[in-house]
């Protein structure tokens, strides 16, 4: 008796008691189907049925022309009613095809549908061994025998209806978050919308015009921002971040931490405090292209309109407190935390623009190279609310540039920097900006240095053609370096025009880098709080790129927009809409139906090693403080991967326990049936 047998024996002993209490002595019904000639043509079904009779615990063994037909199914039901059969085996086609019909049939007669075992003797046996009839019959016998062994110890698995809290959390209030929040609210679901910054709208409020139709972004985002701001069902929290997330699909407990605004809500946003505030720092919202005070509002149409004080730069001179006509400024506000329950979470944390300082030959951000900017900074200069009132000026001397050179693929399609992907967006917005600049200053020569112009989709090729017509020069070559002449201070972009094979040195008064889209800065901690998997590029990983691009790796958590990967605005809105719809489904229905095919932990055997937690991809196993694991049944995907890693076989997936599998393996390996 090897050590393994003893171990299995003890487990069996434990299981036998629990199993037998629940389902009295097993009485198995075996039904072999002819499936016309599909099975009977190769396998001698009568012989198989005869053999099944001889197996232990088998009380009824029949073979019939078409088991899946009405009379066939009725035959199964009768056997349960009359002979008290409590486990059924049907040897016919595959589980995906008719497994469900027999499962539903035995459920109608009061038997738990998991007590049925489908044996595939058609696709796995008769159809593929048509030349070896004798061997096919032997194989069919063994498969049926395995089915019988397997069904002997099947336990009940009931499907639970778990009620869901009818509320949703949306993280991030960019265009994706606003869209998702709005769609959810329209379905009557209360939404908690939290935003890390002090104002909502995300990157879109910074843009000057959006491609391909060059309409201004305010008109596509302001209905959403206003709609969200005063929607009865949406609670908006700005300056707020997720602190803790517990629970699983359908019932999450969320704790958020709201950083203080130091300005009460009765602020009429008259702007007096900012006007008199002595402190001036570069404004992050304006990408550093203009200054803001220590107490500020990001941009005139910001929502919420209340001002916010930046504690780090504030010198506490109290002028804002004294000057405020409604005494809204209050330095004593403390960070507060809020807890609430939600059914689903939509993550719409957006993206960050790649910081090109890492590419040293372009000297971005080094002193003396102020005229090397990124596309977002150019958008800020062009936009109506900019400091330069939408004039394009050189940051170094404020003059209008004579030569503007745009460089594509900065930080993307670059293995050295570790971003091998192409965002598919930089070409579109570079061409848009190039055209706008060329139209504003016809005698400035605008050049785009590209590797491949990628403008797929409707009316983007027209955008490309219109830029060419207006006179934007396109040079195919990736610039290697931006050189500054120390004496004249003039920038030159060194590039090879690969189409005419001539190395060029382009004079450039202003260089605009089309920087890639990279995962946002706070993605690490957010990802670990949500227990979701991330792709190798750092974005959150979708469940399946085609079948389910908006569900994350964990049930109940959905991804909207660029947090899942680089997208342009129209794709983001479509993606956010689908995320909202999927997130709303369990909430509108009110419950989640989940088959409780989940692991059971035998705490006598468990040594608290925590290995099961490491292997569980949907993070459904939580370890409490003294190391005892517990299974979060709703989050479990019943994949069974925790079983082999458990050193003491303490965790066993119901109906896939080691001994249940062992019985089936024994039969299939030719070791003969085992009896009770």
């Amino acid at each position, binding site marked *: 008796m090897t050590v393994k047998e003893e171990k299995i024996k003890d487990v069996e002993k434990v299981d036998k008691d629990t199993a037998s209490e629940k389902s009295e002595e097993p009485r198995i019904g075996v039904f072999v189907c002819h499936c016309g000639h599909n099975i009977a043509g190769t396998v001698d079904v009568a012989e198989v049925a005869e053999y099944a009779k001889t197996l232990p615990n088998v009380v009824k063994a029949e073979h019939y022309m078409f088991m899946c037909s009405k009379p066939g199914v009725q035959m199964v039901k009768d056997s349960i009613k009359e002979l008290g059969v409590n486990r059924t085996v049907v040897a016919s086609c595959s589980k995906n095809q008719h497994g469900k019909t027999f499962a539903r049939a035995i459920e109608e007669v009061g038997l738990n549908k998991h007590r049925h075992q489908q044996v595939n003797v058609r696709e796995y046996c008769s159809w593929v061994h048509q030349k070896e009839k004798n061997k096919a019959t032997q194989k069919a016998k063994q498969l049926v025998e395995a089915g019988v062994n397997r069904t002997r110890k099947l336990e009940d698995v009931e499907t639970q209806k778990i009620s869901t809290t009818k509320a949703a959390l949306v993280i991030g209030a960019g265009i994706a978050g606003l869209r998702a929040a709005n769609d959810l609210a329209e379905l009557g679901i209360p939404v908690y919308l939290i935003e890390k910054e002090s104002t909502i709208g995300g990157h879109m409020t910074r843009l000057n015009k959006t491609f391909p139709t060059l309409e201004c972004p305010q008109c596509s985002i302001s209905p959403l921002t206003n709609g969200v701001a005063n929607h009865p069902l949406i609670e908006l929290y700005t300056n707020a971040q997720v602190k803790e997330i517990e629970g699983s699909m359908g019932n999450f407990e969320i704790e958020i931490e709201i950083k203080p605004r130091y300005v009460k809500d009765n602020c009429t946003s008259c702007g007096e405090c900012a006007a008199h505030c002595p402190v001036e720092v570069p404004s992050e919202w304006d990408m550093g292209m203009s200054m803001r005070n220590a107490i500020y509002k990001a941009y005139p149409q910001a929502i919420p309109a209340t001002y916010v004080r930046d504690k780090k730069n504030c010198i506490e001179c109290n002028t804002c407190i004294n000057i405020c006509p409604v005494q809204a400024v209050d330095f004593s506000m403390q960070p507060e935390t809020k807890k609430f329950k939600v059914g689903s979470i939509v993550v719409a944390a957006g993206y960050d623009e790649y910081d090109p300082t890492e590419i040293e030959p372009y000297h971005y951000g080094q002193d003396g190279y102020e005229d090397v900017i990124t596309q977002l900074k150019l958008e800020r200069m062009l936009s109506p609310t900019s400091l330069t009132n939408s004039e394009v000026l050189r940051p170094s001397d404020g003059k209008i540039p004579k030569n503007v050179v745009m460089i594509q693929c900065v930080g993307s*399609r670059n293995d050295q920097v570790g971003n091998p992907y192409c965002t598919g967006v930089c070409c579109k917005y570079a061409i848009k900006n190039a055209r706008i600049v060329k139209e504003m200053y016809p005698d400035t020569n605008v050049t785009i240095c590209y590797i491949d112009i990628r403008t797929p989709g409707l009316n983007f090729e027209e955008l490309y053609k219109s830029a060419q017509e207006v006179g934007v020069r396109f040079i195919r070559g990736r610039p290697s370096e931006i050189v500054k002449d120390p004496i004249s201070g003039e920038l030159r972009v060194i590039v090879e025009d690969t189409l005419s094979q001539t*190395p060029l040195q382009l004079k450039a008064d202003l260089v605009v880098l089309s920087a890639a889209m990279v995962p946002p800065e706070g993605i690490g901690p957010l990802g670990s709080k949500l227990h979701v998997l991330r792709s190798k590029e750092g974005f959150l990983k979708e469940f399946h790129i085609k079948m389910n691009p908006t569900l994350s790796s964990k049930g109940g958590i959905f991804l909207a927009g660029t947090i899942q990967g680089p997208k342009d605005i129209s794709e983001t809105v479509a993606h956010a809409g689908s995320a909202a719809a999927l997130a709303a489904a369990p909430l509108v229905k009110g419950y989640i139906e989940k088959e409780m095919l989940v692991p059971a932990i035998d705490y006598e055997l468990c040594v608290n090693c925590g290995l099961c937690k490491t292997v569980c991809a949907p993070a459904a196993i939580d370890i409490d403080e003294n190391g005892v694991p517990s299974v979060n049944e709703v989050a479990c995907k019943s994949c069974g991967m925790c079983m082999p890693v458990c050193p003491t076989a303490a965790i066993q997936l119901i109906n896939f326990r080691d001994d249940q599998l062992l019985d089936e393996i024994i039969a299939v390996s030719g070791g003969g049936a085992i009896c009770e």
Partner: protein
Amino acid sequence: MSDVEEQHREYKMDEDFDPKFFKDIERKSNIWKCIQCGSCTASCESGRWTALKTRSIVRKVVLGDLSVLKDPDIWLCTTCYQCYERCPRDVRPTDVIMELRNYATKLGNISPNHRAVVGYLKNTGHAVPINDEVKKRRVELGLEELPPTLYKFKQEGEDKDLKNFEKHMFPLPPVEEEEEKK
């Protein structure tokens, strides 16, 4: 294909290329992933003044165009490694050009000056042999007249290493006669 067409044929066919030839060129270099972006030629300082176009050399290797081996431009590279640093696909063009030079020497196109340098190495152990004027300076500076390198031991008669250099190292194909080369 009559030979008249053969002469004026401007287009190339698959037979003119032999991509297998460069199969194991610098296995580490990812030359087959080159997207022809031109960063290498743009950062090439020698290419600004000469006909050296690194990108088109890499292109010819990827296509398997063997004319690149006879092309004198590959000898204009100063191995400054700027293209090696700046290639977004990590193709390491400097190593590729050095490898091409290896193939080229096997075919025999070596410049006479380089051949002379190999000669110096083989009989003095140095690419730049010493001369009397420098010997005088060394003495004035208080250093011994001959540095303790191979050349000094050759003067003192035991130069077995140098003989081995002669025998085993840097075998160069013989100099073809003039007319064959043209």
